[in-house]
């Protein structure tokens, strides 16, 4: 019997039990739709996070205090130590020490409430140097950025993020206005460009911050014992090719300045790549978890196929006997039932993929998370569905093929 003929027979068998075939397909359908949606959800989240991290600036390295490991066996929490100083930043900025470093911007930040003529807004106050603008790959859309003169004079000036400016001043021009932080009035000298910060909580909102000279922050706003320590040093490498050289120069210089060995390093340097993998690993784990739950539902769907195929074989014992009497070989019978099982799998897979694609369009409107559907994953899911039909159809089909013709003809 030709494949085409077998396929036609299988199709008519599937169609002659519509309700039963439909319910069997439903198992596969739900599994496939769930797999497509969870994988799409995970890929969407990862794309979002990596997009945000790429916005942080090109060729960027970030030095954070706090060691990952210590030879004493005591492990400080990430960022718990306050071991970075402005002196470190200045040293790294030297062309002699680190030729592959283009610019350095130390930064210290804290959440503060800003007040402007009757409105207040809690945001992140960032103390940094004029190089921050280029290191973080930002620009100003209005006014100007901080200058060395501002820094030297502990000037009471600030550059606001676009969101911050809008929250405080609405449609009014913020440049030239005054905001008050901890009792210190700051003059707004500029507004930063918008980078399209998103709803994701995995990184801080880059459009909602107030940038102030680092000296002003240390001496006039934060004060206290931590005034000389800084939370991060942003390093811009001369090119992306020089990133790893810059990384090594920065590490060597900081180890020398702090007088510790590499094993006792009291700081961590992360590249965009490592930030990216840290940030996406959580999403990845979550996606894998969800996808494995979806895969289990697919397995349950497969068992449903096997169950219904076994029922079908039992019901059609006489038909099998007749076909054998008329000349069907073992192989022809097995193939007939395998084709039926894979038709169930294929139909479930295609319908499931359809539902998944519809879900990918509809769901983002409801849950505010993007869902990325990859064609490979969709085609793969359909192939898997057919595979499940075949795998779970093998046993029932083999049972059908093994029936002795006279027993089968006698059966009721």
């Amino acid at each position, binding site marked *: *019997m*030709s494949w085409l*003929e077998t396929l036609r027979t299988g199709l*008519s*068998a599937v169609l*002659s039990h519509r309700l039963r075939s439909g319910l069997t397909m439903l198992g596969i359908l739900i599994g496939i739709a769930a797999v497509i949606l969870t994988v799409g959800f995970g890929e969407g989240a990862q794309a979002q996070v990596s997009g945000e991290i790429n916005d942080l600036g090109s060729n960027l390295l970030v030095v954070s205090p706090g060691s990952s490991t210590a030879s004493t066996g005591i492990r400080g929490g990430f960022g718990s130590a306050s071991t970075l100083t402005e002196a470190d930043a200045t040293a790294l900025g030297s062309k002699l020490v680190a030729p592959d470093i283009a610019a350095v911007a130390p930064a210290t930040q804290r959440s503060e409430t800003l007040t402007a003529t009757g409105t207040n807004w809690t945001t992140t106050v960032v103390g940094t140097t004029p190089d921050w603008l280029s290191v973080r790959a930002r620009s100003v859309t209005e006014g100007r950025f901080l200058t060395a003169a501002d820094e030297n004079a502990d000037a009471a000036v600030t550059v606001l993020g676009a969101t911050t400016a809008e929250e405080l001043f609405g449609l009014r021009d913020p440049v030239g206005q005054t905001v008050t932080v901890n009792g210190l009035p700051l003059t707004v000298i500029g507004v930063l460009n918008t980078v399209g910060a998103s709803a994701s909580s995995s990184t801080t909102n880059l459009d909602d911050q107030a940038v102030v000279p680092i000296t002003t922050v240390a001496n006039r706003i934060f004060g206290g014992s931590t005034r000389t320590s800084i939370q991060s040093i942003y390093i811009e490498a001369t090119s992306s090719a020089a990133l790893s050289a810059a990384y090594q120069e920065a590490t060597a210089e900081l180890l020398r300045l702090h007088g510790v060995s590499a094993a006792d390093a009291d700081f961590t340097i992360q590249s965009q790549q490592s930030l990216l993998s840290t940030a996406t690993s959580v999403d990845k784990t979550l996606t894998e978890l969800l996808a494995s739950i979806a895969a289990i539902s697919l397995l349950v769907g497969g068992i449903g196929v096997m169950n219904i195929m076994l029922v079908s074989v039992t019901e059609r014992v*006489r*038909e099998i*006997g*007749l*076909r*054998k*009497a*008329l*000349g*069907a*070989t*073992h*192989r*022809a019978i097995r193939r007939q039932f395998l084709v039926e099982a894979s038709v169930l799998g294929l139909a479930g897979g295609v319908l499931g993929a359809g539902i998944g694609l519809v879900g990918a369009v509809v769901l983002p409107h409801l849950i505010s998370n993007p869902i990325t559907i990859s064609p490979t994953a969709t085609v793969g899911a359909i192939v898997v569905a057919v595979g499940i039909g075949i795998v779970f159809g093998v046993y029932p089909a083999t049972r059908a093929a093994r029936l*002795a*013709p*006279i027993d089968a*003809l006698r059966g009721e």
Partner: protein
Amino acid sequence: MTAADSLPVIDLHDVTKTYRTGTLSVQAVRGVTLSIQPGEYVAIMGPSGSGKSTLMHILGCLDPLTTGSYRLAGQDVSRMSDDELAEVRNRRIGFVFQQFNLLPSLPAWRNVELPLCYAGVRRDERRSRAVAALRRVGLADRIMHRPGELSGGQQQRVAVARALVTDPALILADEPTGNLDSAAADEVLALFDELHQSGRTIVLITHEGDVGLRAERTVRLRDGRIELDRDQAGALS
């Protein structure tokens, strides 16, 4: 007349069949020797338990024999594998069953073409041969009807058409009138008479005496052995 035509269609030599269930063994056929020539119309008769069903299964290559030998149209089928036997059934034997055994979801012509599917015949040829076979049994106007839309006699005639469509050496009918009222039974038996007259070899298994009388030769079984083998004129063979 070619050499193949002159060979007996069925040549059984000292055939036995023993069924084993656990420690119990039952000898259903105990040494049957039987030869059937082309064009013969033979009725195999006997009470239930006489071994006629077992003999029918052996003749139909549905069940292997325990000892002895069986040549079907000159071909030794006693030591064949399952798949080889499937091919022999497909090409050499046309079955007609008591229960008709038509597939209810398929129209008459699709039921008739079924053996041709397994023989690998092309689709357009299958269709024309199925239609010709249905015409042969007088059902040219029932080609698209499903079995449920046909009377018992018509269903059995569809089954006969299915047996004829491969042009087999042997038509093997197992109680073909067992499920039919007497009018429908006559209809089917008249069809067998007609096929016999056109030169077909027919073996009919029945326990009804009047059905057996239609055949030109009667083989009577008892306790797994041939009790009586005679032609209609009364001459013993």
